[in-house]
């Protein structure tokens, strides 16, 4: 598990609008990479190009290359459905399937992949929920609806659902923005544990969060309203927050704009 990602010359469009332009970067395996930047700079759009979720929006398209180890995700022979099985995603708002129990939520991905054996599923449920630090809280009510959990628990359930299929990469799109500080802390601790197994990419609006959880940080910005977003710099988190090499990064981090 855990592969590296190499992006080169990637641009993404919504219809004729260019949302992000010419992004190239490398994301190390078994590490946490945080994307920061002002609203509308294309962080989330870029994140969604990494598992080909961008293109599910009508009219959206992508140019450029994303290599997962050495395989180009945008090669014509690659099935986007297969990409999404190896690059998992956690969304901004917790979105467990409301019609399913906790158990069924966790195994939803496996069932899609055709796994039916009860023994295997039971084991995966326990392992994934333990991996998401949720097992202790829910192990005696696995057959209750997932929507009955608290917001923070729901988000950890979504993480359990994502890691149950053992992806190479885990993408998180502002996973704590709808959560209270205590739930946020629980998720941040979890991210710290998960990076030993997965390549993690997290979009966040919270700079302290980026500083706390990530090893590397990428700063995105746009030149002006209506302009596409660009990658300004990517460096070790410590360096970005103490001594960034680009002035705009320092301005953003010290709160001078954005």
């Amino acid at each position, binding site marked *: 598990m855990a592969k590296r990602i190499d992006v080169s010359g990637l641009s993404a469009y919504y219809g004729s609008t260019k949302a992000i332009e010419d992004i190239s970067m490398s994301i190390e395996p078994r590490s946490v990479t945080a994307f920061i930047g002002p609203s509308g700079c294309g962080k989330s759009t870029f994140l969604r190009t990494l*598992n080909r*979720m961008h293109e*599910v929006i*009508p009219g959206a398209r992508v140019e450029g290359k994303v290599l997962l180890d050495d395989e180009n995700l945008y090669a014509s022979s690659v099935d986007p*459905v*297969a990409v*999404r*099985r190896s690059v*998992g*995603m956690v*969304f901004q*708002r917790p*979105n*467990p*399937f*409301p*019609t*399913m*129990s906790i158990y069924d939520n966790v195994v*939803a*991905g496996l069932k*899609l*992949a055709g796994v039916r054996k009860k023994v295997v599923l039971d084991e995966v449920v326990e392992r994934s929920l333990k991996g998401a630090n949720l097992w202790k809280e829910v192990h005696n009510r696995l057959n*209750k*609806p997932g*929507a*009955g959990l608290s917001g923070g628990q729901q988000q950890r359930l*979504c993480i359990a*659902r*994502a890691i149950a*299929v053992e992806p190479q990469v885990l993408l998180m799109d502002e996973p704590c923005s709808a959560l209270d500080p205590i739930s946020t802390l629980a998720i941040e601790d979890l991210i710290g544990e998960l990076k030993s197994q997965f390549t993690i990419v997290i979009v966040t609006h919270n700079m302290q969060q980026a500083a706390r959880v990530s090893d590397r940080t990428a700063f995105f910005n746009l030149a002006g309203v209506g302009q596409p977003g660009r990658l300004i710099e990517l460096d070790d988190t410590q360096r970005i927050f103490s001594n960034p090499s680009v002035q705009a990064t320092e301005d953003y981090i010290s709160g001078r704009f954005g």
Partner: protein
Amino acid sequence: MTSSPPAAPRGRVGRQRDSRVGDKIFMNLARGSGILLLVVMAAIAGFLAWRSGLALSKNDGHFLTTFEWAPDAPKPVFGIAVLAFGTIVSAIIAMAIAVPVAIGIALFISHYAPRKIAQPFAYLVDLLAAVPSIVYGLWGALFLVPHMDGLTSWLNQYLGWTYIFDQTKTGTVPRNLFTVGILLAIMILPIITAVSREVFRQVPRMHEEAALALGATRWEMIRTAVLPFGRPGIISASMLGLGRALGETIAVAVVLSSNSVLSLHILDPGGGTFAQNIALKFAEAGNNGRNALMASGLVLFVITLLVNGAARLIVARRKEYSGAAA
């Protein structure tokens, strides 16, 4: 939500009183409408029950098991066995055909068709609902019935062993429960489609994306996110359709060649439904005949009520999974 209410403006106490008059009028109007509805319902039920009682007291046969319908005979004999059977069987056939097709059309409009096609297509389906039932009836009698031969003989040949599709009287015009079922299916298709479509459209984008991000194909996404979320809506839509199928009168009366035979051979002509029987017999019925028809109407009313209650139970049983909380 936690913000405190704005301080009340001083010196306007009198005006506040004034505005409560409007409140009161509106409250009484709303309450009055509610009571009126109950009164009308009670009046209908009471009237039906009273007239039914009159007819039933004179009935020489058993109301529930008798096949014949001769309430105006010197010794009145009438029963709803054939009518209840025909009503339920034709409604089941209609539902078996219409529900899957309607869900398919609704999914096509909400999730498959490009927007340019989806909108006019949806409009076209809605238009089907605007066709008066007598037009459906005429179309059924003049077009559908003469064109049913191929299908009925095919069913008879290959599925005749099921007993249901066994045609015992070959060479007859297919004015049977099966044809009625197909016609009813077409008639209830638009309402089921329209309601299901709206429900499918309301599935939160985030649930669909959750499925897609797990590596679901479009169909798998629909199966894991859209259909379960839309389930209560599909049931409600089906009940609306079923209500129409159970109560459809004139189209059935035009197509079905009714008799008092109760037979599971749905390709044989004959049988009857509650509403069709009332439409057919009401004009020539005598006093007792009319009362008897009202008794049969009461039974239809009760059946519809039971079916709707059952549907509500099904929906309520899985309420915590309905997704309403999300």
